[in-house]
């Protein structure tokens, strides 16, 4: 029997315990989320600057500011940081940690101490990755994919980079494990599975991928380290090995990994849109099943990264067919989001803007994904800038924008103040224009035949490259405005508990910022997650 809760004076989670140590040994999911947020943002800025440097080098043919070897190391580190330190952990570690428990009516995650360990593993992995800059022949120059045999032979700091990725993988696994048990065991009374909001559902599908796929890349990376340190030729054809097997093992994780990257972003869009159209999401159950379908089918399409590797024709056809299959649930979601907007009471606020940009950019990314997924077409665009454009559209235009949207959405809940809406919109607009100027030309370049990971290019590729580089500065300006505006928002007006008037538990039943265990008492759920009928009576917006 739960004891009758004594009425408590409101103390927000920042004030519950004070001092640096109380943060470093915290078990509070909200504090851990914030620690992740600052670490992840820091790493993102570093990788973003590496990207700007790459674009600077590519503003014209020939050498601009770095040698080819350095360029290889820059794009490798850019990829490693963006993928392992930003996109994969990003939304689950920050917004999953902060908002999953309140969204399901829970006081914390299932294993709070494990949560803290995940964060420490993240930081250690991140620092280890950055350390490769400091010694020896410098950071790996293999590309973030670390293909054998080059990754086994190159003198750069591959073993450390790969060890960092292994540790980060462990962090990801533990987070996924934590969220799965949390959702199975800690939903509030009355919250059946099909009353659970869609961001938790997205995290649920994501967590299964984190748990089941990550260990495969873990062992693959350990094999690279083993081959480098023990001299065993695991992928050496002269010893009966197969370098293509490395690619198989790598992509058996790394394809599901892209669903780890995008599913949470999709979940955020599903979470934010209803709030700003004051209408339930269209096709809630279908979105749930689509998320699970993407997670499941996603395990079996990895070969589409290997069409030109020398795989058998039979394998290539099978993987192409399966790839088309996995596109269907994603498309379904796009239709559902757009249908949700129809006849809604639309309130144009930054979270909605980012969600709309997500839909637009994810669609472009998804359609170009069909081009690279189609066996015959991919033969022409594999390893060209078309692929680079494609994945930046889904990962940055999709997940990245969703991440920014979520910051703008949960900002008043997390920090208790409100940022300037006008400047947020301006920043968004410039960022949106800049983003598309950077990456759309890449689709054109790929079609024209410019290879990726090339430090130089033929003169006929110059104009699109220039547009892309100028676009990167516009994008940087937009991002700068967004960041400065968010920082200034800390000194903004005090926010009420539910300024967006959402009907989900995280907004209706917690303070801004929330107290230590989120709720005075665990609520009992009777309505669906996006039931906006008569919502004025349920939003509980208190100053």
């Amino acid at each position, binding site marked *: 029997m739960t004891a009758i809760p004594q009425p408590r004076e409101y103390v927000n989670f920042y004030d519950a315990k004070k001092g640096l140590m109380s943060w470093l040994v915290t078990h509070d999911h909200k504090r851990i989320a914030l620690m992740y947020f600052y670490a992840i943002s820091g790493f993102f800025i570093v990788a973003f600057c590496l990207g700007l440097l790459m674009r600077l080098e590519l503003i014209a043919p020939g050498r601009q500011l770095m040698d080819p070897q350095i360029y290889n190391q820059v794009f490798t580190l850019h990829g490693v940081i963006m993928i392992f330190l930003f996109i994969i952990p990003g939304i689950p570690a920050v917004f999953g940690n902060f908002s999953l428990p309140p969204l399901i009516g829970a006081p914390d995650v299932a294993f709070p101490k494990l949560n803290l360990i995940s964060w420490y593993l993240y930081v250690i992995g991140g620092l280890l990755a950055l350390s490769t800059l400091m010694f020896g022949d410098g950071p790996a120059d293999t590309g973030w994919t670390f293909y054998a045999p080059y990754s086994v032979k190159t003198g750069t700091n591959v073993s450390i980079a790969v060890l960092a990725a292994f540790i980060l993988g462990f962090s990801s696994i533990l987070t996924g494990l934590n969220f799965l048990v949390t959702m199975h*065991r800690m939903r509030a009374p009355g919250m059946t599975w099909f009353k659970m909001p869609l961001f938790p559902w997205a995290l649920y599908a994501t967590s299964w991928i984190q748990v*089941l*796929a990550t260990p495969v890349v873990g062992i693959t990376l350990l*094999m690279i380290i083993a081959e480098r340190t023990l001299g065993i030729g*695991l992928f050496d054809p002269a*010893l009966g*090995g197969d370098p293509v097997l490395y690619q198989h*093992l790598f992509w058996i994780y790394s394809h599901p990994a892209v669903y780890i990257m995008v599913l949470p972003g999709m979940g955020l869009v599903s979470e934010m849109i209803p709030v700003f159209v004051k209408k339930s999401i269209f096709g809630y159950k279908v979105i749930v099943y689509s998320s699970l379908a993407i997670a499941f089918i996603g395990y079996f399409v990895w070969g589409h990264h290997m069409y030109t590797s020398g795989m058998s024709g039979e394998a290539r056809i099978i993987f192409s067919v399966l790839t088309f299959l996995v596109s269907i649930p994603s498309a379904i979601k796009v239709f559902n989001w757009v249908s949700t907007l129809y006849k809604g009471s639309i309130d144009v606020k930054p979270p909605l803007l980012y969600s709309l940009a997500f839909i637009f950019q994810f669609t472009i990314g998804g359609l170009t994904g069909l081009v690279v997924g189609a066996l015959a077409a991919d033969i022409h665009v594999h390893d060209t800038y078309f692929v680079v454009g494609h994945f930046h559209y889904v990962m940055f235009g999709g997940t990245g924008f969703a991440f920014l949207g979520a910051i703008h959405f949960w900002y008043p809940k997390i920090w208790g103040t409100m940022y300037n809406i006008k400047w947020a919109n301006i920043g968004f607009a410039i960022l949106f224009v800049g983003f598309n100027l950077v990456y759309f030309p890449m689709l054109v370049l790929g079609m024209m035949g410019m290879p990726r990971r090339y430090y130089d290019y033929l003169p006929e590729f110059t104009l699109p490259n220039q547009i892309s580089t100028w676009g990167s500065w516009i994008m940087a300006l937009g991002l700068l405005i967004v960041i400065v505006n968010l920082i200034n928002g800390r000194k903004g007006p005090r926010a009420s508990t539910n300024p967006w008037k959402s009907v989900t538990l995280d907004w209706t039943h917690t303070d801004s910022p929330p107290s230590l265990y989120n709720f005075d008492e665990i609520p009992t759920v009777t309505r669906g997650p996006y039931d906006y009928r008569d919502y004025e009576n349920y939003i509980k917006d208190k100053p």
Partner: protein
Amino acid sequence: MSSDDALHDQMIHFDSYGKKLGMWLFLFTEVLLFGGLFIVYAAYRFMNPEAFHAGSQELDLTIGAINTVFLLTSSLTVALSITALQKGDTKKSIDLIMITILFALAFMFNKYYEWTMKYEHGLFPGMDHYNELSAGEAQFFNLYFLMTGLHAVHVIVGAIILLFVAWGIKKGTITQDRYIYLENGGLYWHLVDVIWIYLFPLFYLII
């Protein structure tokens, strides 16, 4: 009890099933971790059938079989230790865990002996005879050392976990009414056993 603890206990409840689910999920990650190596094994054995046959001849079937029996028996003893604790016999439970750990040590001793034999024949990564292995046979031994080596690491980790569990029973934090940590330690140990159940025929029985 401080008001912090009181608030914590009011909001958060001990959940044995949740902890069990968490352990199973962790076991899945271990399965997929070794799974990657089994995938390599499958590909390379398929590509180099005679070489794998030749490599298997070099392994000592008797030691492999004895080790299999050791691990199967250790799985029995840890299962029995749970039964004992469920019946309230903490002493027997602890004794059975210690026997389990003894079997783990015996396994490790055998493994050490096997590897030393290989080392003395130059059949060890980095040594001359190893570098002269033919295509295919090289991969057999790469996988042999990687997979049994990774497995051995898990044997050691499992034994340490069980030591902590035995300590918990002694201290009274693991009891007849709340023994999820013993169950979870047992689950981990059984997984170590299951992995070996597959390793044994795949390495020692290609004769």
